């Protein structure tokens, strides 16, 4: 049985191919002008490496914002379900996923089979997304990559009071003008960011309801300071995934494809 999952996001498109329950290949490209083109190109690239053709696919499921338009996929499923399913397959003890990207933040609870139990999402406000960290690191005059380690260098993280990214940026500029240390401000920023994600997760009771492991995905997962603060807030270890987290959506879609194939086609 050969199945595929395809994830067309706003910045990248991903395709992943599974054969008999094992990943045989995947690929990631930057998006083309239309979701249809992105899907076609990334699937072709992934297939090429395996020597397979489109006709060899038994079932394909699509996800991501362009998921409805892909003609070779037989079903489309929300990226939240796929993301949770993919992460759970990588590490079956996972029950909670927090995905913090450049434009949104999602908290996901999955059951013992990887099915979506509950979720919360913020895509309305830049506070609590990667954009917040981008804005603040620019105000601090440091690279985004330098921000995370500051948590481990500071003995006195400063509290960032304002939630709105625009006003928090001012707050940081005033702190700098007062002569406060970049290390302490940066550590405070990581703390504030973790607090936002924790609040979102708490809105679906992820903090109390966590029955297994917790992972954090998305660009902000690379910030070790945010991760450290989240571990403190959740009072739990945050585990990492054995595969590129970017591919979780496509992986989850392929897993759904396998499930639908078994249910609809093979009987």
């Amino acid at each position, binding site marked *: 049985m050969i199945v595929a999952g395809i994830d067309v996001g706003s910045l990248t498109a991903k395709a992943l191919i599974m054969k008999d329950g094992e990943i045989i290949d995947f690929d990631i490209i930057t998006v083309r002008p239309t979701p249809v083109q992105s899907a076609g190109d990334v699937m072709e690239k992934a297939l090429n490496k395996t020597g397979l053709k489109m006709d060899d696919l038994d079932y394909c499921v699509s996800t991501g914002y362009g998921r409805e338009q892909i003609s070779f996929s037989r079903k489309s499923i929300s990226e939240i379900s796929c993301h949770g399913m993919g992460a759970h397959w990588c590490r079956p003890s996972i029950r909670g996923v927090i995905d913090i990207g450049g434009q949104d933040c999602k908290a996901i609870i999955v059951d013992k089979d990887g099915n979506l139990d509950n979720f919360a999402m913020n895509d309305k406000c830049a506070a609590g997304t990667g954009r917040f960290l981008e804005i603040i690191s620019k105000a601090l005059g440091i690279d985004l990559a330098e921000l995370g380690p500051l948590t481990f260098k500071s003995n006195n993280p400063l509290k960032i009071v304002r939630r709105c990214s625009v*006003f928090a940026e*001012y707050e940081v500029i005033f702190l700098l*003008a007062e002569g406060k240390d970049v290390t302490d401000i940066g550590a405070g920023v990581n703390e504030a960011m973790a607090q936002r994600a924790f609040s979102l997760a708490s809105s679906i009771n992820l903090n109390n309801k966590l029955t297994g492991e917790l992972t954090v995905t998305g660009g902000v997962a690379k910030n070790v300071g945010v991760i450290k603060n989240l571990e403190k807030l959740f009072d739990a270890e945050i585990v990492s995934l054995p595969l590129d987290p970017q591919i979780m959506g496509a992986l989850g879609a392929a897993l759904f494809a396998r499930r639908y194939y078994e249910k609809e086609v093979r009987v």
Partner: protein
Amino acid sequence: MHFSIGMDIGLVGIKGVVMKGENIVAQVVKDTGVRPALAAKECYEQLLSDADISSDKIQAHGVSGWGSKTLSFDFDIEYLPDVVCLAKGAKWACPTSRMVVDVGAQTAKVARFDGNGSVKKYELSDKCASGTGRFLEIMSAALGLKVNNLGQIGQAASKLVEISSQCSVFAESEIISYVNTGEKTEDIVNGINYSIAKRVSTIIMRVGIQEDIIITGGVAKNDAVVRYIEEMVKVRFKDYGVDPQMIGAIGASLTAQQT
């Protein structure tokens, strides 16, 4: 007649007045910059020199605004609630008014007050930059325009490019995408003016509309925003012959006189 000084310390600008009784003797606006304490001190000194008066002649000092609590002065000063000063200043600027809408750099405030300028009901929005002057500044910078020109530019539009993001950060990316898809600058600006007017109107409706209403704060200088708010809440703002930015400082000065 007693002299008093009122200062309104905002996120972007510090506004100050010297008053003799009910009359303005001098007024100063300064950029807050990154050192509000220094800017406030400079504003104070310039007020004294513009009014040609020594500090011992000032009987009352009132300060309000975002920065007031964080600053200290070497003379007795009344720290006054923003909304109290705003209502007092509005009543002074337009004696028949009973309601004021103030849109500043980081706060939108709406207050109803009685014939003495005492606040009866108010609402404010200071958690989110949408619906504040800061929103307009970010959008104008993204388009390479001066914030003071947004009103005029927007009024030349032939259509409205609606901004769907409420968040200033996301709205900034959104308008850049409209530039890239070939939308005209004036049509995008029209959408920006409409967007902030919608946020402010929501706050006005929470307080409940009352005739005899004025609009103050830096954003009151944007005619297009003012017209949109008038359409949305179905009211006409009264004219008054004072710089709309100065109302809070005037209110601070008057309130300090009375305490």
